[in-house]
């Protein structure tokens, strides 16, 4: 057919069809995996466990050839470095375990898939990893919305999930503690870190009285802002929350948000967009001169390595005037222990980058699974879960205890100002580090307020 002689399709109709196609493309088929992740580091062979026979060859667990750990992380888009770092951390742990003979003789294999920060995609891929690939455990999860959606599914899948980044307090306080989804654990600090620690710091900064919010427009951003306000009001009655702007995922231009919030003349900005979106936000705000008007910019996940790398030039030029604060779920420069420094150096040698907190928490999650499986002598979710609950593990981040009641890992992480540091050759959360006792800011069961 060369010439179309029939009636032509209306361009407007075609546009609507296009938009429908885009929507359809974002929805994975129910019974198929949605986008298997590419290896984030082609030069690195840690993911090729299958091709390199590991030392362990005599798995002592009945009916198990090897222990398979499925990973779900953001592996595409502006947040993709988180998933990539998760995969690096998981593979690093698997390599170490396999080099030492595996878990009770069983080789460990890792496979990561893209969650796309989308609950439906994550659930589809979790089902694929467990049902088709044969994962015994799942680790990862970046988005709070995804974590909340997946928690009930883990009962049905009968697998342990260790969340290593998503931060909503509803995961441990409601899904695990209240709703009893006992297969769900979390190895990373919850939103207490982003919100309550911020409030404790601002409580001692009387020069800050007017506060604006530029929030990530989903569960995490909303709950962080709410918790920050509630906590700060317990310490200060002279602060005003003067403006809010909310940015959904995929926002590229934050200028209207910055402009809108700065119009209320705040002393401080509380910001929760993260990863690449945090970089764009901070850079756009800095270029508009916002830091000259502010006393403090709190970037909740400002300690993320991708953010620190991207903002190093500005930090070196002191463009943030020492007013940019950040924290994370782990800082590569803290604690200053031999164990942490050795781990960071090892990571740096393997990947030529500093580890992000998602790498450390996922590394620790795999190590915790090793300890739990060895203690249980089984990969059964109930047995392994029983060992994980109440476990204390020595991680690069220090000593971590997983609470029995809500399966939440408890450990302190500092917050501080983001500055350029000659020792690391990049920006880091290195100045005015403030470390609080976990009793001061971790909410505890029974969560009655």
């Amino acid at each position, binding site marked *: *057919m*060369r*010439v*179309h002689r*029939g009636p*032509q*399709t209306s*361009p*407007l109709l*075609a*546009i609507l*069809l*296009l*938009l429908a*196609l*885009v929507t359809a*493309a974002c929805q994975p088929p129910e019974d198929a995996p949605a986008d298997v992740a*590419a290896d*984030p580091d082609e030069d690195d062979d840690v993911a090729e466990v299958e091709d390199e026979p590991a030392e362990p060859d005599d798995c002592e667990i009945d009916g198990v050839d090897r222990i398979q750990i499925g990973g779900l992380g953001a*592996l*595409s*888009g*502006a947040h*993709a*470095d988180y*998933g*990539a770092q998760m995969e690096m951390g998981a593979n690093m742990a698997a390599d170490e375990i396999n080099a030492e003979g595996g878990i009770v003789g069983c080789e460990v294999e890792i496979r990561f898939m893209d969650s796309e920060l989308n609950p439906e995609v994550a659930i589809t891929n979790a089902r694929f990893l467990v049902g088709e690939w044969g994962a015994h455990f799942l680790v990862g999860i970046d988005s709070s919305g995804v974590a909340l959606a997946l928690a009930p599914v883990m009962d049905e899948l009968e697998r342990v999930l260790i969340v290593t980044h998503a931060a909503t307090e509803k995961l441990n306080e409601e899904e695990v503690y209240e709703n009893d989804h006992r297969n769900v654990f979390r190895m990373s600090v919850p939103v207490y870190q982003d919100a309550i620690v911020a409030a404790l710091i601002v409580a001692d900064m009387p020069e800050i009285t007017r506060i604006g919010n530029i929030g990530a427009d989903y569960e995490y951003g909303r709950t962080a802002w709410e918790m920050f306000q509630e906590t700060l009001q317990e310490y200060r009655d002279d602060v005003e929350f003067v403006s*809010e*702007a*909310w940015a*959904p995922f*995929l926002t*590229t*231009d934050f*200028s*209207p*948000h910055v*402009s*809108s919030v*700065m*119009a209320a003349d705040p002393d401080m900005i509380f910001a929760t967009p993260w*990863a*690449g*979106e945090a*970089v*764009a936000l901070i*850079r*756009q705000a800095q*270029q*508009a*001169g*916002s830091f*000259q*008007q502010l006393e403090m910019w709190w970037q909740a996940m400002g300690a993320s390595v*991708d953010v620190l790398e*991207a903002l190093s*030039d500005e930090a070196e030029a002191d463009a943030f005037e020492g007013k940019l604060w950040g924290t994370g779920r782990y800082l590569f420069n803290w604690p200053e222990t031999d164990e942490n420094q050795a781990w960071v150096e090892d990571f740096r040698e393997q990947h030529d980058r500093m580890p992000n907190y998602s790498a450390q928490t996922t590394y620790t999650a795999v190590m915790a699974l090793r300890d739990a499986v060895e203690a249980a002598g089984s990969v059964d979710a109930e047995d392994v879960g029983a060992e994980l609950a109440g476990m204390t593990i020595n991680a690069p981040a220090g000593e971590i205890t997983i609470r029995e009641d809500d399966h939440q890992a408890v450990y302190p992480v500092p917050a501080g100002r983001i500055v350029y540091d000659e020792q690391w050759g990049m920006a880091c959360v290195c100045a005015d580090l403030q470390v609080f006792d976990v009793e001061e800011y971790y909410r505890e069961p029974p969560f009655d307020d």
Partner: protein
Amino acid sequence: MSVENLLYQGLIGFTNAMYLWLVAAGLTIAFGVLKVLNFAHGSLYMLGAYVAFSLYGEMGLGFWFSLVLATLSIAALGLLLERTLFRPLYDLDITYGLILTFGLVLVFSDLARLVWGGVFRIPPTPTTLIGSFEVFGRGFSYYNAFVIAAGLIVGVALWLLLDRTWWGRTVRATASDREMAGALGIRVGWIYASVFALAAGVAALGGALSIPVRVVTPGLGTTIIIQAFIITVIGGLGSLRGAFLGAVIVGLANAYGILLFPDVELFLIYGIMALVLLLKPEGLLGERR
């Protein structure tokens, strides 16, 4: 809310409108002449951003040189695409082009992931454009001012090119009646190729301009094309002036939506599109067909 703050917010919205304008301009030019709805047009914006990033951020070439080279290289890619993939489509129903360009979006997205990785990219801001000056009592970045200037210059240049040159007249003649233009000796194939290259180049320039302040990711093309289609629907498919008007409306609606109507900000743009479709389906400056 002070008048100064309202005006400043408008200026912020206008800056965003310039990025959108550069994408929508190429989209509407290509549709006006070739009658192809190029869903992959946003991918050309993305590729322009990535190429500029490689030249400026990785190879260390000058920012201005990188802008020009990225624009020209994607224009050349546009030329190649038109001669090889789009050419057989002109006699077919518009849906064929739709399917082809949707496929191209997926190809370009995966290609970008393969070449530049899945993680975001953002190079430093060129030193000559760092800093801000005061407008309406607030700081306004030099870079934003540069983007506004670039968008307006491109707008004037496109108008001059299409309205005041021999090439522009032949383009308009071809768009109006392809067979008659061919009978009069106009090399229609060459006109189509050059128009598509121009459209690709303008989109690439938009992408290249965005790199110091907006992160580049493989999915960027899809995000931007949705906004570009909304703009062309509002302004009128095939109308260059309509694309500019649509971009300004969308940019301002976004900015003022965030400031004044934060709860319905996302709905606002779609609401405007729906209203235009209801009251003037051909778009504000589109021609009734």
